[in-house]
């Protein structure tokens, strides 16, 4: 079935079956030059192994907004119906997409990214850690229960964050200091 993965002036969304290396080779991602990115590795639990169920999700139809998350939202349908009443459309039943569309709607209503993320922590129920990217920003939010892991490294040159420190060390093999964001924490960085 046809699926629009992304439409934007800087965002390119690529997802497929296989590990990071397999997908990167298939789509020649090693040549992709840019300022920032987010990504997701999925273990199929609730739905099948196919591209449709793979993350990240684009915040349709807002160009250049994408989301990845780890965790589960428990009030998915209430939030989705509320957003659909405002004219927002959904392409999947994945809760990452709900976060993306929720944030996009807030931004459309005039909130800045950080405000939108802060209100998501009270409006969205469940256990989750998510990252959002826009044309020139990267943000992360951790719910108040903080059950899902996140490790962060920040320097003047770059910010790297991941579910586990091993991912940050794959980029920065030298001695680095990382830390875990607090529960209910929201952070946004500019490219």
């Amino acid at each position: 079935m046809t699926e629009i993965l992304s439409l934007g002036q800087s965002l390119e969304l690529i997802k497929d079956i296989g590990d990071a290396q397999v997908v990167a080779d298939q789509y020649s991602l090693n040549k992709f030059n840019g300022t920032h990115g987010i990504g997701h590795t999925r273990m199929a639990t609730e739905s099948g192994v196919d591209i449709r169920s793979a993350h990240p999700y684009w915040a349709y139809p807002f160009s250049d907004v994408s989301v990845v998350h780890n965790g589960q939202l428990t009030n998915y349908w209430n939030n989705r119906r509320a957003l659909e009443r405002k004219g927002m459309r959904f392409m999947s039943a994945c809760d990452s997409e709900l976060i993306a569309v929720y944030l996009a709607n807030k931004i459309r209503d005039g909130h800045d990214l950080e405000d939108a993320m802060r209100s998501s922590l009270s409006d969205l129920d469940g256990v989750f850690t998510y990252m959002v990217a826009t044309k020139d920003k990267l943000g992360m939010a951790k719910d108040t229960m903080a059950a899902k892991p996140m490790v962060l490294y920040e320097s003047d040159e770059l910010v790297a964050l991941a579910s586990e420190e091993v991912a940050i060390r794959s980029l920065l093999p030298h001695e680095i200091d990382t830390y875990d964001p607090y529960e209910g924490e929201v952070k946004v960085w500019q490219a």
Partner: protein
Amino acid sequence: MCGIAGLIHRGKSTNVGGEMQKMLQSLKHRGPDSTGYALYGSGKSKDYILRFKVGENVKEGSSAIMEDASVYDTRRDEVNKQIQEIGAKIIKEEQITPYSFRYVIKCKDDLLDLAKKNRVSRDDRNIIFGSIFGAH
């Protein structure tokens, strides 16, 4: 269980595709089934990049059902048609896999404005701005 990773450079562009690959590969134990990337290029172009797929990968390990390849052509034609319908023009097209494509399209209007204009009934069949996807 899943793994997520992100990276942002302050004030410069690098091989962010290769860097994200390294980060995600090291999280393979958290999720070996599929991998997704949202990568942000320089963003200087006024043109839009469209990434879409017309089918699934049915290789070993996939739970997707094999379809006749002829439906891919039909679906792609439909996307092409709808790009024209929104008044945009395809200026470059690449086929990455039998089912996935990357287009560069020129569009006079802001996408969000276009989407608002196309915010009609739920039966709308425009793939780009419609709800053809339904609930899955």
